[in-house]
């Protein structure tokens, strides 16, 4: 994925966050996009990290959710138990902002295994807080590169729940941001393409999706990153290419 597409992805992700919302920020691209939003249209965005950090404003992009800068700029640091039990479980997190290895048409995420659970072909990192965030945040936004491996017809493992078969649950996945465009979920809880970056075609997106992808009646062409978005993106991403994605 080129740097341009990363920037588009970060900008589109950032725009989905509204000022004053409380967003639980996952590592990688979600971290980049949330920090972008906070520096632009959402200065009072409350960045929450599963490490227990509430309302961080890191001067640089933190390398991980456990960066010492997050602590230094935070409102407070909670024991993880309290964050998950008293803030997340009770609905005080507006947005779960997540990455993942794979996503399916219901917005289920797999970050556990490729292949059978008990003898995996590839053993991934596992849930961390992702399953909890996907279950309890008021909505989730998933940021993930768009290709056939990451958008399979069938997930080997559901780590973080999306929408149940046939219905759309309150909460759960609201949007998926990829390096091709923007997707949401229809009233049946099925993923649907609603926007593409300039130069991306709907059929290209379909080709890189492992199931017959639903497409909104009107697919918008997403506004390219503004010069502000590009500038802030570049400053944030500088020297941090390795950890993102």
């Amino acid at each position, binding site marked *: 994925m080129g740097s341009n597409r990363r920037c588009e992805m970060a900008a589109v992700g950032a725009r989905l966050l509204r000022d004053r919302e409380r967003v639980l920020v996952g*590592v*990688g691209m979600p971290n980049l996009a949330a920090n972008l939003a906070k520096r632009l249209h959402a200065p009072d965005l409350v960045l929450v990290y*599963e*490490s*227990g*950090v509430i309302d961080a404003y890191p001067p640089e992009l933190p*390398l*991980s*959710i*456990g*960066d*010492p*800068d*997050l*602590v*230094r700029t935070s409102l407070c*640091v909670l*024991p*993880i*138990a309290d964050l*998950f*039990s008293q803030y*997340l*479980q009770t609905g005080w997190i507006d947005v779960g902002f997540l990455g993942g290895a794979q996503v399916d048409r219901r917005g289920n995420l797999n970050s*556990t295994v490729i292949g059978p*659970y008990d*003898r*995996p*072909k*590839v*053993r*991934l*990192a*596992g*849930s*961390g*807080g*992702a*399953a*909890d965030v996907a*279950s*309890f945040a008021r909505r989730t936004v998933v940021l993930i590169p768009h290709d056939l491996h990451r958008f399979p017809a069938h997930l080997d*493992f*559901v*780590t*973080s*729940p999306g929408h*149940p078969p046939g219905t759309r649950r309150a909460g759960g996945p609201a949007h998926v941001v990829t390096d091709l465009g923007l997707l949401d979920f229809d009233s049946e809880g099925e993923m649907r393409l609603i926007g593409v970056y300039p130069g991306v075609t709907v059929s290209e997106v379909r080709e890189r999706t492992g199931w017959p992808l639903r497409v909104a009646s009107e697919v918008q062409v997403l506004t390219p990153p503004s010069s502000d978005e590009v500038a802030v993106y570049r400053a944030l991403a500088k020297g941090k290419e*390795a*950890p993102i994605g």
Partner: protein
Amino acid sequence: MDVLTVREAVRRHVEDGQNLYLAGFTHLIPFAFGHEIIRQGRRHLTLSRATPDLLYDQMIAAGVADRVVFSYAGNPGIGLLQAFRRAVQAGEVEVEEYSHFELIARLEAGAAGLPFWPLRALDNDLTRLRARPRVKSPYGDEDVAVVPPLCPDVTLLHAHCADEDGNVYAWGLLGEVREAALAARKVLVSVEEIRPAGSLRNQRDHLVLPGFRVESISVEPWAAHPSYVQDVYDRDQDFYLEWDRISRDPAATSAWLERFVYDIVDRAAYLSLWPPERLSRLREAARIGVQ
């Protein structure tokens, strides 16, 4: 409470087959204890930790573990834990896996001495696969998920400092450190420094554990390297990246363990293997951030 070397603390209190929790969340990871456990050749351990991190990757590579209890086995901000990944794929270690919330709820049950801990159920494959039980509330129709206690035989942790009474002080991200300590049968602590009894009384907001819950204190500066100690030294991010490369190759992994763990006698010897400038840089970086 005894003041012991890391070697003596491990010799006396860590036994084959135990369930260990080497605590510390993203910082304060007790590498000195972990390396000593490798050196002393402990076997058949259950290694419990929400975030296994490089430390458990090294311990797994060294063959000390039969089983890993965890919730996120990644190299933070970088990728996967390669030795862990290989061992699981080869069926060489068993895994017992949770979400963060579930794992920490297990520690809370342990810390409270209760047979289970309640939380809202997760509708995912781990729940289905492991048939997590639920309990019906006697106060209505709701039911909730419950997890069993996790009570490590020994929890080992690193902290900023302790006093001579064994009272332990730390700050910054504490994650699940306190619960992991309170749930344990025994707690071993390494610290950057030890201070006279009573001299830290004005630091009560940073008290993590009173001395009467602590088995031993070991004075071991830099015990958390390559992880960090808030305001004291920064994470050695270069090593976290290096490990990603080293750990992809079993031979390189063994060579690293030979050089940095087996071939040395103690932490001072370990530190002498790192360029002094590198360590000063990490100290410097941590202090820049301190207001």
